[in-house]
């Protein structure tokens, strides 16, 4: 992993001067005031790494390693083709998506009743328990890697999507509980009572009346679970070996005797951004509320 990390800061550093010059030249004819300039620079720095990743993914390895070009001279989809045809590559995506989806579904379905309890009932130690839940989120995943590894090896869960999905629940359930509790507390308790008076049984009320009211909260919580599970690498890599190997692990293991396959790695990187970008699109209007744990 260390060699991969080493190259990452090097890449944007090389390029930024050249890229900036190109942009300034493009802007020069129009009237530029300070505000647009700052904005343009900001966007430039923000988008540059992503642009460069896409750029690289469409170049041949020769072009990447021999010349410095702002766009692919010799455009190729060979890297993408390889990812979509080679089972060891697309299998990584399938593995990752499998445990991410399992984890998101598990976390949300466990967090919904828990958040409802925290939001609606007072019980002994509720506030402490609620805070303790969040404090789980504060421990680094590395702390849990060893116990999970040993435990899962013992009970035969090692190297299955369930291993990673369950391990990620440790972080995602508390987060989802906190987010959902915030959204639920925004719904007046009287609605619950009115539903009971109308004759709704609790499960029916919860699914038919209550869940639509906190739909945006469920969306945001699911998004956060999805993103955490999607980007988390340490536990995912420790708890899998071959059968459930996640894409991020696959990417870090591509260094071969022949050297680094730059283009392939870049293409894999582009494809890794896509699911997150898709999910974020659906919850874009609620993200801020989600970051405030539903308490805005």
């Amino acid at each position: 992993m260390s060699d991969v990390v080493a190259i990452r800061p090097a890449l944007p550093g090389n390029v930024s001067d050249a890229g900036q010059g190109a942009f300034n030249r493009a802007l020069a004819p129009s009237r530029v005031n300070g505000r647009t300039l700052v904005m343009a620079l900001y966007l430039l720095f923000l988008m540059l790494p992503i642009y460069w990743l896409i750029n690289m993914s469409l170049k041949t390895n020769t072009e990447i390693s021999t010349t410095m070009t702002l766009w692919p001279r010799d455009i190729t989809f060979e890297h993408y083709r390889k990812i979509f045809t080679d089972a060891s590559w697309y299998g990584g995506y399938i593995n990752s998506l499998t445990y991410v989806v399992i984890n998101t579904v598990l976390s949300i379905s466990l967090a919904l009743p828990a958040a409802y309890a925290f939001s609606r009932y007072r019980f002994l130690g509720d506030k402490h328990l609620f805070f303790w839940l969040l404090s789980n989120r504060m421990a680094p995943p590395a702390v849990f890697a060893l116990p999970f590894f040993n435990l899962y090896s013992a009970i035969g869960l090692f190297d299955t999507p369930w291993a990673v999905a369950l391990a990620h629940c440790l972080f995602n359930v508390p987060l989802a509980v906190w987010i959902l509790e915030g959204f639920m507390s925004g719904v007046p308790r009287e609605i619950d009572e009115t539903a009971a008076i109308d004759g709704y049984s609790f499960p029916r009320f919860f699914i038919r009346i209550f869940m639509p009211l906190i739909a945006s909260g469920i969306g945001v919580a699911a998004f956060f679970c999805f993103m955490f599970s999607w980007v988390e690498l340490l536990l995912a890599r420790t708890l899998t070996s071959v059968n459930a190997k996640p894409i991020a692990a696959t990417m870090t293991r591509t260094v071969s005797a022949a050297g680094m396959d730059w283009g392939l790695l870049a293409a894999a990187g582009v494809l890794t951004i896509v699911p997150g970008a898709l999910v974020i699109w659906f919850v874009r209007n609620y993200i801020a509320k989600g970051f405030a744990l539903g308490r805005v």
Partner: protein
Amino acid sequence: MTLVLDRVGKKVGAQTYIDDVSLSLERGSLNVLLGATLAGKTSLMRLMAGLDAPTSGRVVIDGKDVTGWPVQRRSVAMVYQQFINYPSLSVYENIASPLRVARLPAAEIEARVKDAARLLKLEPYLDRKPLNLSGGQQQRTAIARALVKRADLVLLDEPLANLDYKLREELREELPRVFAASGAIFVYATTEPQEALLLGGNTATLFEGRVTQFGVTPQVYRQPKDLTSARVFSDPPLNTLTARKSGATVALSTGGEARAAGAFAAVPDGEYTVGFRAHHLGFEPLGGDALSIPATVSVSEITGSESFIHLDSGERRFVALVPGVKRFEPGASVTAYLDPRHLFLFDEAGRLVASDLPKAA
């Protein structure tokens, strides 16, 4: 159907919400729960509905003890002060919701919802979402939902408190009429004595979790059993002073003496708390037996056709409600007059011992 609360109490932790309440409400009756904020009106309603279980006592419906029953098994409808509807459902579905849960035939649901919507003037809004309606319309939706259910017990918890006064008057007139046909027990909580008088029916005065008096509304107003009930059922606040009767004379705590006439004639010698309502205090000199109270004007408020004059007299503050626009300069010395027939005498324990008002409504 009859709803009986039998020595019902509700405690949460060390706090007493409802303290030993016994009430019997009859089918087809309109009952007002009157009390200030935090007097326990909502807590009592929640016990009646079954949303909360009492910590002591029994709730009996038609002779059946339903104390521990969940609210789903009871035939109740409730309207809250806040406008509570299901935001994700249309107005039509909101009103239909209790009927859908009860699995009524579609035609019946349609007919009942249309009926209620017509009665509450919601017909043009049936396809809208509740949050796109005005406050009055939202509350009408909640009332319509309570209506279609044809519940045996209808609880209205300050349903008009959050509405502007025009809507409030309009709905207040409609409400008893709308529910009258159903023959349900109708319970209406309010903080306003005037609202209780306008609604009529029976009134229970609540103070600190206790029902201090329960009876026919005008009778409770005219014959409060004790000082607390009189205070609860008085707006502007009940004026009080203390008086000591000895023989044929009465010495007032505000200074001065009067002949022991009116209510004073019937009671033995001793010290009494005198309670009287704002509109019985006036500034025109009355006949010989009138009590006269020297005072200074602190504020005068003019509402249009009436004026509230706030008076200071020694330690006491009084409010006089006089017809017409009367101008009193703050600080002016005045003498207020009170007819001894229009007062309540309470003994040291606060029980009513004499009043000269007609007994029946």
